C-alpha cells in the first residue's frame, strides 16, 4: 500500500482494467457460445493475466475487493480514494 501512486490512473490499475474488460466481454460471449474452443482458450489466458494484475494492484496500492484486504493494523478497504474521487 502506498499513498504516492494515484489508484485510478496508475499502471497497475490500467492492467487490471484491460484484463478485467477482456474477461467480462469474453464471459458474455461465452454465455451464447458455450462450446467455442477459441473463446474458452482466450478466457483462460486472460484470466491468468487478470489474476496476476489484481495481485499486483493489491500488493502495490490496495484491495480491489473487501475479500482481498490484507489486515495488519488497519482496515485498508477505506483508505484509498473511491473510484469516482479522481483529481480532475
Amino acid at each position, binding site marked *: 500500500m502506498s499513498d504516492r501512486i494515484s489508484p485510478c490512473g496508475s499502471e497497475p490499475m490500467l492492467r487490471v*482494467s484491460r484484463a478485467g474488460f477482456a474477461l467480462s466481454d469474453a464471459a*458474455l460471449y461465452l454465455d*451464447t457460445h458455450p462450446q467455442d474452443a477459441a473463446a474458452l482458450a482466450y478466457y483462460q489466458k486472460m484470466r491468468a493475466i487478470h489474476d496476476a494484475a489484481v495481485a499486483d494492484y493489491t500488493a502495490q496500492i490496495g484491495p480491489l475487493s473487501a475479500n482481498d484486504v490484507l489486515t495488519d493494523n488497519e482496515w485498508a478497504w477505506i483508505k484509498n480514494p473511491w*473510484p469516482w474521487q479522481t483529481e480532475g
Partner: protein
Amino acid sequence: MWNYERRLQCPVSVKNPNPKLAQVILAAYGGPDGELGASMRYLSQRFSMPYRGAIGVLTDIGTEELGHLEIVSALVYQLTRNLTPEQIENSGFAPYYVDHTTGIYPCSAAGVPFSAGAFQSKGDPITDLTEDLAAEQKARTTYDNLLRLIDDPDVREPIRFLRAREIIHFQRFGEALRNVQEQLDAKNFYAFNPAFDPGAKQ
C-alpha cells in the same frame, strides 16, 4: 449476490466542471432509457427465464449495467464539483441544485424521477428478450444524442465506451433470442409460453 470491485469499468477523470452537461448526462443514469432501468429490467426478468444460457446473459449484462450507472454517476459527480453560484444560475442547473444540491439522484434530463414504468418484466422469454433488444437500441440512441452535445474529450470517451457496450449487448441478446427460438416449435414460436405453460419447455 454481488461483491463490489473498487474500480470503474471505464476510468472517469473530468477536469472542467459543466453543470449544463451534468444535467443531460443524468438521463443515462435514471432516465427512461438509462442504466438503472436497464439493470433492473434484466435482473428482474431472469427469474422466469426457463433457459440457463439466457439467464446467464441477463445476469451478466444486468451486472455490467450496475457498473455503467456507476460510470454515469461519476461523470455527473465530477461535472458538478466546485461549482460557483454564478455557474449554477447561468447553466439551467438551478432547479436540480435546489432539490438535490450536487447529490446524485436518478432522474431524467427533464428532472422526472426514475420510474420502473420505463421497463417491463413480462414473464415470456420471446417478449422479454425482444424488449431487451429495443432497450439496448434506445440506450444507444440516448448516447448518440448526448455525443452531439459534448465537446469535452474527458466526457466523450466514457460516453463512447458506454455506447459501444450497448451495441455488444444488443448482439448478445439477439443470440440469446435465437437460442431460445431454437428450443421452441419452429412452425410457431408463439404456440405456448415456455415460462408458464406446464410441460411445454423442451
